[in-house]
């Protein structure tokens, strides 16, 4: 791989500031990544409970796969991954539909009570605080969704944040496009589907990232809703490694388990990063 240093250089100036910036960023990124490097080293340590040189980033031991062996034996990783993926995608897909429809209504249609309804929507901004746990669980039980992945997703299907974001995105699109389409005989639905949505991809992408990151990371709510071990999600599974009530902590196992969660994402993100970031960046989040 060729180091593309000159791209950092501002055209018309000499190369050094660009190289300097590249070096500085490499240093910062190295610092940022030290917890991961440590996890990688610690996961191969033969003394996972602790040792004097435990924190060293330079391996000074004969590596062992023991922590990985335990992590594989103790966890149902593929199942947990599958459940988390279903959860994240199932939440997002419905959200994209509801926020696009609602965002369109708020951005493009005038109707009585619009302002008031918009503010009522925004009430939801603070997501599922702990006191809502019991009332929401009760609702799930009545709907027959307790102990199901759908039950974990349902409270998030209407998103105030997403609605707001889509309303903003639609409003930045000039009305001329739609008017042209309407003159050609397109219905509101066709306008939304073939004109507005394609022009709103950056907004939808931004929302998708926020949603996926949030639900991928969530712990307390899935813990409350899910009982069946076959529906357990990654975060809850990870906790079975990460927490020790009696004061014992197997750092090697924690590191190996966390890396297990990271690995597929690491590979996927590195492989598709350029396309992903580029498409997201193509016209900017406004």
């Amino acid at each position: 791989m060729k180091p593309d240093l000159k791209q950092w250089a501002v055209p018309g100036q000499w190369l050094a500031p660009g190289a300097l910036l590249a070096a500085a960023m490499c240093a910062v990124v190295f610092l940022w990544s030290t917890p991961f490097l440590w996890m990688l080293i610690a996961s191969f340590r033969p003394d996972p409970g602790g040792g004097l040189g435990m924190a060293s980033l330079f391996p000074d031991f004969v590596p062992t796969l023991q922590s990985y062996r335990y992590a594989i034996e103790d966890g149902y990783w593929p199942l947990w991954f599958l459940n988390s993926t279903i959860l994240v995608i199932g939440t997002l897909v419905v959200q994209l539909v509801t926020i696009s429809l609602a965002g369109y209504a708020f951005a493009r249609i005038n109707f009585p009570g619009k302002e008031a309804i918009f503010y009522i929507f925004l009430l939801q901004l603070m997501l599922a605080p702990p006191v809502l746990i019991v009332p929401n669980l009760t609702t799930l039980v009545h709907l027959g969704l307790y102990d199901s992945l759908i039950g974990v997703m349902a409270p998030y299907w209407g998103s105030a944040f997403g609605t707001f974001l889509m309303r903003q995105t639609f409003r930045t699109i000039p009305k001329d496009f739609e008017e042209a389409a309407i003159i050609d005989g397109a219905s509101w639905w066709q306008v939304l589907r073939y004109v507005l949505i394609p022009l709103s991809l950056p907004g939808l992408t931004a929302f998708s990232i926020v949603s996926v990151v949030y639900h991928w990371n969530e712990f307390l709510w899935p813990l409350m809703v899910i009982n069946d071990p076959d529906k357990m999600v990654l975060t809850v599974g990870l906790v079975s490694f990460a927490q020790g009530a009696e004061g014992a902590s197997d750092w090697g196992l924690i590191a190996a388990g966390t890396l297990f969660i990271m690995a597929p994402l690491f590979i996927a993100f590195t492989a598709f990063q350029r396309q992903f970031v580029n498409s997201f960046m193509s016209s900017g989040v406004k």
Partner: protein
Amino acid sequence: MFIRSAVGALCAGLIASSAVAAERIEFMFPAPVQGKLSREMQKLVKEFNSSQDGVEVVGVFTGSYDDTKVKSQAAAEAGKPPAVVLMSANFATELAMNDLIVPIKELAGDTDLDGLMQEFWPAVRPNAYFNGDVYSIPFQNSTPILYYNKEHFAEAGITKAPETWAEWVDAAKKLTKPEGERWGIMMPSNYDYNGWLVQALTMANGGQFYNTVYPGEIFYDHASTQGALKFWRDFAHQHKAMPTGVTNSKQVSTSFFSGKASMIVLSTGALTFVRENAKFDYDVAFMPRNIRNSVPIGGASLVSFKGTTDAQKKGAWEFISWLTSAEKIGHWSRFTGYFAPRQTAYDLPEMKKFTAEHPDALRAVEQLAYAGPWIATYNTVAVRKAVEDEMQALLSDPELTFREAAARAQKNADAVLAPYAEQTALTLK
């Protein structure tokens, strides 16, 4: 592998829903030490399920002890009470007071529960009872115990483990190396562990800590607790043999393994973990005494939430009886390091063989002769936190006196207990 698990999960779901005969009950349990315990617990559940046809237990992993309490309570309030929960042993009292769990006699029918409890160690019995009824069956129990590095002891010329507080301070000072190179003693002071150890020191100082008969009284601003607060804080500020500030239990175990701490206090529940990770010669000893040898018990018991059907109750009892049988409870004890609360487990040949091989496991059991119940009052966590806040402040702030701290802990705890006291002891008509 991915697909196989998915298909497996799907099939498991289908089979479970098509098998109508078995009564399905949920069993929620926390993972007390690490992932492998959670897997072992699921194995036990499977073994039970295949041993009979009447009941199908679903093992639900529920995170930490606190998460377990939150989840099971929330499920019960939402109308899905779990039939069996492995709950921190001292929560049974307040769960019973809040009418969330049922007395075990509702599950057990004609079983002589008082007779059954006689098979358990006397120390674990009080936390199982409330208002004269058994509300929980002990499953895994522990006490605080002193772990020490024998190599450091030899190096410092100490020949035996400290037995009194004076010897303890003396040893801690001798073992400490300056500039934080090595600490003589470390004890976890994060919430939960903190209150447990303040109680242990108070009991060793001759105190009661709380009223074991009436759940509306706590004795923080009394000599025995004051002395305990002072004793702990002095390790850090006066003897400089312990780091200042709050130390969590993970720091304590990791420091011990890396030779940064010569003596530590941890639960006997960590015994197996210490045995597997200490790369040096270590041993365990009783908690040192000032007035008397005495420690509180810890660990977890099985409870059943209110609102399950009669069939579920019957199934729950079948599972609880199976899981707390001398054989299974002994197996779990050997696997985890907790002591088996059922005395009869120690009469089985496997257990005799095990304790002969691991005399440290026996030390934990011997200490039981001096053990008492764990703090269980009205609103236990809030009452316990009142003294924990002050202990944490004492460890962080060298200017704060133990008298001020004890007085404030008492005031805050009394405020928590006041509504209960008003309704009970102070209702005079």
